[in-house]
């Protein structure tokens, strides 16, 4: 049991390294410690760019852009995300990225996103009518 636990921690650490590197190499325009929220919710320090968000969300259309598209096993509709609250979208993507929220496809997608990407996607989606 113990060697397994140690191995798991090691694997997690390794998995976290690229994410850390990505953050460090992120855009310099952001002020990492400044938290700009209108409410109490912890969200993001990064200002989103809707044009970048538009480009980043082409892939999302495959599931979220098809009216009535369903997730299989379990069977339910893929949610409508256009016009959703911005901080909610940021939190959802962060949670998928960290694994706190679970969905195989969404976790795989979110793992490739930087903090800047998530801010861009959220600002684009939340402004859709």
């Amino acid at each position, binding site marked *: 049991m113990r060697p397994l636990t140690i191995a798991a921690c090691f694997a997690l650490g390794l998995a976290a390294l690229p994410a850390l590197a990505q953050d460090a190499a992120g855009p310099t325009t952001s002020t990492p410690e400044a938290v700009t929220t*209108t409410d109490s919710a912890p969200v993001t320090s990064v200002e989103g760019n809707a044009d970048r968000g538009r480009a980043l969300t082409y892939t999302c259309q495959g599931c979220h852009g098809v009216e009535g598209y369903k997730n299989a096993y379990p069977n339910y509709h893929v949610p409508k995300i*256009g016009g959703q609250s911005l901080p909610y979208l940021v939190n959802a993507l962060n949670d998928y990225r960290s694994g706190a929220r679970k969905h195989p496809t969404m976790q795989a997608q979110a793992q490739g996103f930087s903090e800047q990407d998530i801010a861009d996607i959220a600002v684009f989606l939340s402004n859709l009518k």
Partner: protein
Amino acid sequence: MTNSRLRTAALAIALLGSAALAACSSDTAETAHADAGHAARSSSAGLPSGHVAAGEQLAMTKGAATGQSCIDCHGADGNAPIDASYPKLGGQYGSYLARALQMYRDGSREHALMSSQARGLTDQQIADLAAYFGSRDSELSTLQGAH
């Protein structure tokens, strides 16, 4: 450690065994489900169909766990969340809303308020809430034509 491993193994065997049994006798199992259906809080057979009126009533009722109703936080018709980090629910797909509530209930999704709010819900209540919020006007859209 050895004990817990043994227990895990025993559980796995028990689960496999019951799964096999269920598969072999699915006809009788379904009958049994139907009989027990009224009392069951949740069923693996899927959610019952939801009723908008019942969902509306429940959406206005303050939950025991948080002292809040759905509407208290998500706003009228689920379209005016009081905190920007809370999602809009109005017109969202009912099946997605039901799935979210099921995940909060079983702990596979967590939120400080939603987890305790959903814990006591029955399948029927989840189906009713999903039907209600899914039937409201929506500020949400799919990404169809958004690019």
